[in-house]
């Protein structure tokens, strides 16, 4: 009886050590920096004079109520709330973790997820795809919150 238990303990230890080595702790800051660099490169391609992203512009974009928005989704802040450090809520009643990176450190760290939601939410609110500059500004604003 004693042996298996000690064996299990050893194996648990061993496996957590190997797991730790195989999958390094997620580095959210560098993943987010890579996503910002991706959008910066896109922005520079569209405009060689691109100077960098602006948190203030990102904030304005987040709070704006664009004229052509779908009635159900008048602004980004409609679901994410005007203070991104607050949790938001979907129209179907589900809680959304805060957009602010200080509150949800894993925000904007997976490019496929970031692209999916920009594509949908820009379409719903702005009735078009957002530009690379708008996306970078938005992430820069949220990273400052």
């Amino acid at each position, binding site marked *: *009886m004693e042996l298996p238990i000690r064996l299990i303990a050893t194996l648990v230890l061993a496996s957590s050590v190997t797991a730790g080595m195989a*999958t390094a702790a997620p580095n959210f800051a560098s993943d987010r920096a890579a996503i910002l660099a991706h959008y910066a490169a896109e922005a520079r391609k569209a405009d060689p004079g691109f100077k960098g992203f602006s948190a203030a512009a990102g904030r304005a974009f987040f709070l704006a109520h664009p004229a052509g928005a*779908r009635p159900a989704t008048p602004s980004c802040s409609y679901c994410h709330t005007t203070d991104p450090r607050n949790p938001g809520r979907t129209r179907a009643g589900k809680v959304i973790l805060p957009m602010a990176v200080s509150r949800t450190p894993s925000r904007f760290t997976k490019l496929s997820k970031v*692209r999916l939601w920009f594509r949908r939410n820009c379409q719903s609110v702005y009735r078009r795809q957002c530009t690379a500059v708008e996306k970078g500004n938005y992430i820069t604003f949220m990273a400052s919150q």
Partner: protein
Amino acid sequence: MTRLALLPVGVLLAAMLLPAGAALAATPQQTYTTQCGACHMAYPPTLLPARSWKAIVANLRHHFGEDASLGRRDTAAISTYLADNAADGPLGNRRFLMGVSPDVTPMRITDMPFWRVIHVRLLRPGIGTGPGIRKAAACNLCHNVSGNGEGGEGGESGG
């Protein structure tokens, strides 16, 4: 007892033997739970007939006032999962089709006769059907059910 104690060892060994960093591809069910559980609970597929799921998945760009569209691969995986597990699918439960006419395609679980019979008391004015948010679709507000996605981790995407 000894055999019970040894079982986790095998599991652990198997886990250790997996090649480092091997990300197991998401199953269709996981894709469904993640993507269709991002804005509301991932509804149990057996609560609608296959034709309803087909119509819903075919029109995700205009999904109850929102754009819920997905990449082609995720859409295909979800379609298969829903067809298999729909009320009239091979793994579903036909009981939920009670009272549904074959030439009607309900677009909401909350429009299904079984649901309306069970929730007849909730359907009194003020609960289920106000403008804007139809709280009735938030089953988990009243029922202790799982079915929450991780916020639509894009398996693939565009834009």
